[in-house]
């Protein structure tokens, strides 16, 4: 697994590449928690190069969503393959985490003022 980070208009884009599995999920979750603690409260996780995610990886996404929720921050995921999206759906994450098809749409969502 590799993580690529970039800033665009105050939004942190985290592009995750490869397999977010039992061996790599700890590093993924720890980096997200660190970035949020450092003040990144609008985050887009681009999953277009994420080939595989298991429950350990899903926990990382949930931890990030909870951390941001507690800080009035926002998380939008984008670029998921159909297979990965099906897993997020299966575990009920599509109901609690914003997921959009493209990075452009994610950035548009994150640019909008927060809902009252």
């Amino acid at each position: 697994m590799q993580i690529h980070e970039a800033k665009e208009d105050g939004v942190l884009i985290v592009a995750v590449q490869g397999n977010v599995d039992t061996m790599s999920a700890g590093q993924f979750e720890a980096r997200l928690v660190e970035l949020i603690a450092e003040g990144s409260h609008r985050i887009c996780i681009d999953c277009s190069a994420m080939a595989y995610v298991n429950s350990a990886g899903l926990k990382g996404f949930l931890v990030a969503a909870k951390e941001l929720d507690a800080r009035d921050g926002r998380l939008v995921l984008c670029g998921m393959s159909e297979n990965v999206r099906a897993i997020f759906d299966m575990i009920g994450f599509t109901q609690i985490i914003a997921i959009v098809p493209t990075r452009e749409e994610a950035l548009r969502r994150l640019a909008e003022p927060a809902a009252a």
Partner: protein
Amino acid sequence: MRKGRVMHEGSIKIRLDAQLPEVERLNRLLRHFGELHEIPGRALYSMNLALDELVTNVILYGYENPVEQKIVVSLEASAGSLTGTIEDEGRVFDPLSVSAPDLSVPLNRRELGGLGIHLVRSLMEEVTYRREGSKNLLSRSGKESAKLNS
């Protein structure tokens, strides 16, 4: 994946030490096997994930002492169906005995624990499970190409 493509028949048997890094090796072998046998993406992903979660569970919770313990995983593609088998000497665990998770609770009340079991439990709608002695048998049959394109 094109509609109607038929996967090749074949099988693989993998012997693992009961240690977490072995799960990564298992996943890589399953993916290679899946690609070479042209197993439809969704079927391969579901089976890989179910085997990954169950083997991880056996390694983490199956033994008093996992040293020297072996787990044998088999995958067979035959006549349009996919059958995965896990053989282990760990304590018996039936994922179907776990109740279905409540997915309607809001984000701040979603629990971090038990995601693996939730996932296995949910995958059972796609992958059937039964236990035979020391074997965990998982199977997923037919209709792959139709499902993929729906």
